[in-house]
């Protein structure tokens, strides 16, 4: 049983590392700072007409990549038992980054998202739930309710992980159906995080049962 779990965590680490590097590569497109970098090429209307858009967009880009690092450390049973301090400090960094930078900026740029109101609603909902789950996880910790803390952090990270799943779904859908860009965007806006939540909810319940 223990061995099987190890294989799983190694597989997860490899899978996660690969996509983390891709995300890092995407983030590096925004260095040096430019008003026309990458995704901003099709966002010049917002850049030109909305004063805070560019700053908030960059806050999101630079902070969101930090929210993926817990995927290496925070759920690893070895680190959890042997390096409690690392867990604690990494946790603080994650929570502060999500609550004050990545989630609020995500909700703001979500309001101006491509793909119409359907996509906008999805991204704003995603940002709000991410913020709430993270706060709830910290409240649980304050009440020394470790199990609840773990559950809400799993939910929080499942939503952070949508950065990767959203982009992965896009590649798959474009490869299979060659849809118009915004058609696929409306779909991945939802497909990016709802299945993540369902999967993590399933895993949480499964663990609870056994």
């Amino acid at each position, binding site marked *: 049983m223990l061995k099987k779990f190890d294989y799983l965590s190694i597989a997860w680490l490899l899978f996660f590392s690969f996509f983390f590097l891709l995300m890092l590569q995407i983030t590096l497109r925004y260095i040096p700072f430019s008003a026309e970098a990458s995704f901003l090429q099709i966002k010049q209307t917002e850049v030109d007409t909305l004063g805070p858009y560019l700053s908030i967009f960059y806050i999101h880009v630079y902070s969101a990549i930090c929210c993926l690092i817990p995927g290496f450390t925070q759920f690893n049973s070895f680190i959890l038992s042997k390096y409690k301090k690392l867990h604690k400090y990494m946790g603080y960094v994650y929570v502060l980054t999500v609550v004050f930078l990545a989630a609020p900026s995500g909700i703001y740029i979500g309001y101006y998202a491509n793909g119409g109101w359907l996509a906008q609603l999805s991204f704003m909902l995603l940002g709000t739930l991410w913020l709430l789950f993270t706060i709830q996880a910290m409240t649980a910790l304050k009440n020394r309710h470790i199990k609840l803390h773990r559950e809400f952090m799993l939910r929080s990270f499942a939503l952070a992980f949508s950065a990767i799943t959203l982009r992965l779904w896009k590649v798959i859908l474009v490869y299979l159906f060659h849809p*118009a860009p915004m058609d696929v965007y409306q779909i991945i806006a939802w497909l990016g995080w709802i299945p993540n939540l369902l999967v993590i909810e399933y895993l949480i319940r499964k663990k609870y049962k056994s």
Partner: protein
Amino acid sequence: MKKLILFSIISLLFSCNDNKKVNDDSSIVEDSGKYKNLYGFWVGEFVADVYKEGSTISNNKLNIAIKSIIGKKVIAQSIVAGNKRPLTGEIDTANNRLTFILSEPGDDKYDGKFEFELIDNTLTGTWTAYDQSLTVTKRTFKLERKEFVYNAEVMLPENQYLDQYSGQDSTITDTIDNETETYVEKYYRAASESVYEINSSTHKFTEEELKNLKKLDLEILRNTIFARHGYTFKKRAYRQFFDYVDWYVPVTDNVDTELTTIEKDNIKLLVRFEKYAADNYDTFGR
């Protein structure tokens, strides 16, 4: 006689005091005017006739622009596939036929000699390459008179536009009557209705309007601007969409000074979106 009187009146208006000049002018005008009805654009398909077997060839739209015919001397231009070449030669009226032999200068790889005849308002003839090692060494054509006026309103006809040079194999597995079959199908980029529904010359685009368009749509919308101005396309990837359009007449290889402000702005925006689509459409990212 009528003509002479008319000329006299015109020249009297402009130069009342020099009667001698009247005769000189009229003689020149009459000489060059003899074939004036032939001046202008002659347009049609430039059909590959002799070519290397197995090579990909395209029958481009050819425009022979006749500039002047003075005496027997003909000055013209050939405009085809992004190449605008000067033509000089002679017209021959022997045996009640009107035949032309016009030559390109020979300093371009694709230069050659045009031989054609005017039959029933059609210039019918052949082109032979100087360089016989080219893929296509002989082409035929039937050209008809075409007017060219820039019109911002003209649109691509309603059609299903496929990029026939984008063929990509995709393996498809299908189950028919409980038997699994695997076959390879070619997949081509297809354009949306936007390419004949939105006018890129009269309407200034917003980002919002372009976001849901694929790269091919953006490319066609941008090149429709150039086509309206009579630009001759070097890339056959673009020629394929315009060569068969009735209003499209290739007349120039440079339209930079002709573009309107709306068109310039739209081109800038379209280029930006094309680049974004090329970099991001099918890759891991947004």
